[in-house]
């Protein structure tokens, strides 16, 4: 319900809102500016930066000096692969828990959640040593597997909260009409579940794309996704502002766009249904 608000008051609100919004957004805006400057101009004082010439050269240099798209591709494979595998395992589990709840369903759900609360550093050494033994260090296979496990509890939970909202009566009706389990899932449940599955997918791609504990610890050069690649700019000799900006902007742009579409799902997914 819209409250009647006087125009001067709305102008004040708007000014305050935009000022604070721009302040918070400024670092992202600033790397966007720096990414279109030459390396020499990017370290000037802010006003001189704005006055200097615009150029695309950093974007080309990022690719030619380091295999940027190789790392980009690693990020794509790791985030999409782990999300797809996670959904494959989680959809049946969440479906069963939502529609055929047993006595222990709640315990299982909470237990799954508890695995997410395990600090990753608590299992860093075993995972590292297992990967080393299996020759999986610095491979995408290891990261897809690890990332899937890291996010599996969130996937199951999110799907569960979505599936639970599908009225069970509809399934009853389908069953009455003679639908078997397969038809029930394929023609009744899935169409109603698609939005929930899509949001879950979106949020998990975002989480996997940005994950930076396992990616930093389990990769070196070959399988390094963008999180680890950007980290290589941390060395003092790597003070290349323009190139860092270009690489950063390309790394965050796809996720920023996806993130804007998934604000609501973020709340649901990361609070495990505690806030809707």
């Amino acid at each position, binding site marked *: 319900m819209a*409250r009647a*608000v006087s125009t001067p008051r709305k102008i004040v609100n*708007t000014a*305050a*809102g935009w000022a604070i*919004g721009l302040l*918070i*957004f400024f*670092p992202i805006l*600033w*790397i966007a500016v720096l990414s279109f400057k030459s390396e020499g101009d990017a370290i000037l*004082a*802010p006003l001189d930066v704005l006055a200097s010439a615009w150029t695309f050269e950093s974007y080309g240099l990022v690719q030619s000096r380091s295999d940027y798209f190789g790392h980009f591709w690693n990020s794509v494979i790791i985030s999409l692969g782990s999300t797809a595998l996670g959904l494959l*395992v989680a959809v*049946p*589990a969440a479906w*069963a828990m939502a*529609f055929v709840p*047993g006595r222990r369903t*709640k315990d*299982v*759900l909470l237990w*799954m*959640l508890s695995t997410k*609360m*395990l600090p990753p*550093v608590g*299992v*860093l*050494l*075993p995972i*590292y040593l*297992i990967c080393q033994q299996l020759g999986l260090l610095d491979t995408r296979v290891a990261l897809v597997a690890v990332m899937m*496990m890291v996010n*599996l*509890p969130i996937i199951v939970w999110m799907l569960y909260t979505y599936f639970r909202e599908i009225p069970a009566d509809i399934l009853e009706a389908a069953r009455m009409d003679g639908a078997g389990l397969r038809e029930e899932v394929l023609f009744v449940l899935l169409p109603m579940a698609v939005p929930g599955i899509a949001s879950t997918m979106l949020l998990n791609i975002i989480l996997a794309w*940005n994950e*930076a504990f396992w990616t*930093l610890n389990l990769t070196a050069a070959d399988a390094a996704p963008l999180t*680890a690649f*950007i*980290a290589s700019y*941390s060395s003092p000799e790597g*003070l290349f*502002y323009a190139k*860092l900006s270009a690489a*950063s902007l390309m*790394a965050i742009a796809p*996720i*920023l766009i996806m*993130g*804007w579409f998934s*604000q609501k799902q*973020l*709340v649901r997914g*990361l*609070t495990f*249904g*505690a*806030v809707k």
Partner: protein
Amino acid sequence: MATKASRIAARAMISPSVVLLLGWMAIPLGMTIYFSLLRYNLLMPGPKPFVGLENYAFFMTNPAFTEALVNTLLLVGGVLLITIIGGILLALLLDLPLWGQGVVRIMVIAPFFVMPTVSALVWKNMFLNPVNGLFGHAARALGLQPFDFLADAPLASLIGIVSWQWLPFATLILLTAMQSLDREQLEAAEMDGANALRRFIHITLPHLARPMTVVVLIQTIFLLSIFAEIFVTTSGGPGNASTNLTYLIYKESLLSFDVGAGSAGGVIAVILANIVAIFLMRMIGRNLDR
């Protein structure tokens, strides 16, 4: 109405997830506990004798441990304080009628989607760097001596960077909660002559108590494991001034190759996280019954 057949089917559908997560949690955690009882250093091949709790004693008597523990608490506490207070203020502001609300909201939420290594490096180089950073330029423009944030106030700088990343999360959740608040209640209070502050304290704040608790608990879980931000900015330094527990364990494990001590640290981190997790789980569990 679940038949026996559907029960069996349900169990079969749940078990892959359960087995996978059990393997992911139980096996490595068991290994960590086992390693923590051995004298085991990757640089020293040979037997790995059982040494009981020696690694725990070694890890916990290390002065770096106390320092890391204090840093962890300061980091988590500082970020929580900033994000909760900032989040409430921002949510109140974004809840007001204003032009371009959607765009402002998008700008406020954006930092959450920036990967940790990018946000930490951007802050480190483009803002906090005393020579070329924006704050350095600003200080010189005002005739002041630029401040070397990451060298002289590493932990405070990290708190700032991490708060920037998590403020959107707190704002988004508190805003979502605020929008479910009954407007008529607020209007009734307004008619009864309650001013804005009293309306906030007596109606809005109690309504936000639950989402605030959720924000605190969930952020704590993530903030206890802050790693990438430290990795790319200060590497825990100078000295151990910005080393948190996670980073200390990482140093012990993969830089000193002391598997025993690193694992003991890992077990301690798990125990600490569990204390927070128990409260969170209880809240979420209560919610499931509803």
